[in-house]
């Protein structure tokens, strides 16, 4: 295991939690929740990018987690924590079956099948009366008294999962994932079960997406099929690309920046799509390594100048 930079993580998590303690305005709190959840989804999307695949089914697994947590709460009356974990487990379990079939394909096939899956699952929710049909599922409340602490709780859960994904990325397992992206055949010839590692990567990412879905359900109390369209994955991709995909910090920076800008500058009106679309286009055309890549290069140039 490489150096995990624990002090940085501890400091940043403490800062983020401090923000959630200070924010008391409901609108601001909703934006903080949005950032926590979107960051978790973006990091989950990036985790599958480690094996070189774009996972548009992220949106579907977030939705499955949200509906599973919602059903566990409203229909089965399970306790909050159990319902949340249940959402992640359901998403991971379905992703294992889905991944085992689809991860034999690569590149465009995997991408498009994930996209189709997202839409198919969405149709299933909207046709299921037990899940509320097109109007969605209502009344997914966290325990009484938790309301005031929800932003802190959501931030804490997201931070723990993001850190866990970071630890996995830095472990030998993470190195196998990068090796699969770089040169799958070499990894196969030294005795590594590539399909198994891919499915594991996919299931771990889907668990995180499922938890993100559950958090979304408890944060909004209402979910509907429209919340989990492929746009969820498209936005997550925007966060990853604008922030930079080389490092886990990238999607975090991208999420904070774009969600904040999107919320404050445009008030989340009908222009939201234009804003995100333009951000993605400009990022891929002008900043191929994202903001963190630009910052790193700037820092290196500065260091080089100092050295002279």
């Amino acid at each position, binding site marked *: 295991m490489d150096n995990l930079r624990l002090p940085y993580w501890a400091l940043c998590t403490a800062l983020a939690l401090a923000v959630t303690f200070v924010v008391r305005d409901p609108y601001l709190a909703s934006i903080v929740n949005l950032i926590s959840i979107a960051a978790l989804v973006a990091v989950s999307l990036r985790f599958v990018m480690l094996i070189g695949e774009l996972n548009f089914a992220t949106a579907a697994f977030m939705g499955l987690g949200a509906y599973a947590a919602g059903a566990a709460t409203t229909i089965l009356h399970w306790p909050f924590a159990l319902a949340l974990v249940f959402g992640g487990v359901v998403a991971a379990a379905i992703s294992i079956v889905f991944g085992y079939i689809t991860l034999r394909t690569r590149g465009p096939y995997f991408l498009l099948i994930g996209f189709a899956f997202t839409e198919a699952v969405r149709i299933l929710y909207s046709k299921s009366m037990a899940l509320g049909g097109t109007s969605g599922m209502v009344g997914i409340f966290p325990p009484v008294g938790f309301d005031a602490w929800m932003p802190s709780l959501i931030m804490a859960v997201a931070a723990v999962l993001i850190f866990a994904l970071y630890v996995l990325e830095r472990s030998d397992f993470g190195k196998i994932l990068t090796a699969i992206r770089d*040169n799958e055949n070499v990894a196969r010839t030294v005795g590594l079960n590539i399909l198994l590692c891919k499915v594991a990567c996919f299931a771990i990412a889907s668990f995180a997406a499922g938890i993100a879905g559950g958090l979304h359900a408890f944060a909004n109390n209402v979910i509907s099929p429209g919340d989990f369209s492929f746009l969820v994955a498209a936005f997550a991709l925007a966060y990853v690309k604008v922030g930079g995909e080389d490092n886990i910090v990238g999607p975090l920076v991208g999420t904070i920046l774009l969600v904040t800008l999107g919320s404050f500058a445009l008030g989340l009106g009908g222009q939201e799509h234009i804003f995100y679309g333009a951000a993605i286009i400009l990022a891929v055309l002008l900043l191929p390594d994202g903001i963190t890549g630009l910052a790193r290069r700037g820092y290196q140039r500065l260091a080089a100048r100092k050295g002279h």
Partner: protein
Amino acid sequence: MQAAEQVLLRTKGLTRRFGGLVAVSDLDLEIRPREILGLIGPNGAGKSTTFNLISGFYKPSAGTLFVFGENCTGKSPLAISRMGLVRTFQHGSLMSSMSVRDNILLGTIHGVSGAARRRERTEETAAMLGLTPHLDNMAGTLPHGLQRLVSIGIAFAARPRLLCLDEPLTGLNQTEVADTLTVLERIRDEFACSILLVEHNMKAVMKVCDRIVVLHHGQHLASGTPAEIRNDRKVVEAYLGHRHDS
């Protein structure tokens, strides 16, 4: 079982057809313990196909494949590699965006448990290949000769019983070729590992191999010690004839 222990790999009548084309035909091949076996032949003789058949990347159209005495006909590349037969690829046999250390480490993951022991194995392998000074460099930024050594390093880090190298000397200069050959001899002598070497550099093959098998048009043409092969009339004709054609 005695015979099985003496032969690491044996093929009987191994055949592979692609549509109407017979790439490898009725090939009998044997690799013994502690030997470097050269597999040579003009372009299109079926060397790469043979390589892919042995490592499980192609399924044979006919014939059988025994690896370490076990019938492996039709087994997956994963199953065969886990038995201790590890191969490299002719083009790009490494992970260019990862450090040399992580590249070699990858070879240790399946066979070695425990981070500390993997690290130890990685460093030991790097030292043997002379890669220690480059451990923390990105593999893709190394000069071509060192990249070839990294490829061997990844495969050898798995400590195979049979190491199959697909043209490991292509594009190397004379010093690099000599260094690589020394490494191959050490792998054979110090680790009792046999090596199957597909290579175009005739001088190197003649120098390092214990035995040589010559393929021509997908068929076995000749086999023997380097000296025998050098003086084999059929082999000389096959090579000269090929040159004449092209």
